[in-house]
């Protein structure tokens, strides 16, 4: 349930960029998902085909890159992965602080295709500019 509205949002953003380039369809969407973002890539994938049906994203490939969260040690500056029930730095034992690493949740890029007539028109527009 949590990922359904987010999947709709992903498709909306991909379509917005596709339309900007007069694409006829979205071939793939590259998503960056931090493991602390609160979103599960596999759940997004589960909803994706259903939500994308009939849209410019229908049949698009979802490429998901996961990012593991890291803490930063305020004492020695080490970035590290935390162990369960602990925030301790493995280098010096001080208490690590949260960072933005692992919170990522964004669309990195989309690959779009344009049929030849549209492509020709776009190239002409570009020449006219």
């Amino acid at each position, binding site marked *: *349930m*949590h990922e359904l*509205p*987010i999947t709709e*949002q*992903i498709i*909306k*953003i*991909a379509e917005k*960029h*596709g339309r*900007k*380039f007069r694409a006829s369809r979205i*071939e793939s969407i590259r998503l960056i998902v931090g493991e*602390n*973002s*609160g979103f599960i890539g596999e759940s997004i994938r589960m909803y994706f085909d259903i939500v994308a049906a009939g849209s410019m994203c229908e049949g698009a490939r979802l490429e998901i890159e996961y990012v593991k969260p890291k803490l930063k040690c305020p004492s020695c500056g080490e970035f590290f992965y935390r162990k*369960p*029930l*602990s*925030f301790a730095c493995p280098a010096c034992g001080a*208490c*690590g*602080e*949260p960072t933005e690493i692992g919170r990522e*949740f*964004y*669309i*990195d*890029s*989309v*690959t*779009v*295709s*344009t*049929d*030849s007539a*549209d*492509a020709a028109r*776009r190239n002409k527009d570009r020449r006219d500019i």
Partner: protein
Amino acid sequence: MHDVRRIDVMENIHDENDRIAADINADMTKKNVFAVNVMGAPGAGKTSALKWLIREMKGLNSYVIEGDIESDIDTRALRALGVNAFQINTFGACHLDAPMIHDSARNLSFDEGGVLFIENIGNLVCPAEFNIGEHIKLLVCSVTEGCDKPYKYPLAFEKADIILLNKTDLLPLLDFDGDFFMKGLRALNKDAPVFRVSGKTGEGYEAAAAWIAAEAKKIRSPLDNF
């Protein structure tokens, strides 16, 4: 023949939610309404906390938007106490988001300013991920949930601006390790004040309400000076 190309997007998927949240926040600030996003697990005591806080919120009007998956039990209880409350039912969704608050805030009249408490869905995970236009996030947790919660649900503890540790009247019956709780909490959040409260006796709520009221004064609209 197809022309295939890769387009760099680099767009945060929360952007639209955050834009609406910023609009709500600006609108509330203009109306001198201080918005508090009340988060906590189911049964932590969020609604009882609101009843005590509103009682102690001397001289400030209080408004409540109640978020629940189903039912209006909490809204009815608050209205029975004379609180201006509005119910949102999400029917399955595990958190409130900015568009929901944008739509429901229209149902409350904020003519006199004050404090708007938005009670999020009982859940220690997702509510912390979505801005809903609040000025502060208030986390209600209780000693019966166990002292390991900051380690298991770090985001809610990290994002909180104020934390109420509830049900402290039950401490004599529990093995709640307060030092372990505070160690985990302070690793994530150095600044948020922690108020030890009891929804049963009302202990600790006067000080918590005074802290919120003092924060609320900081957002007074610049127009007030004219």
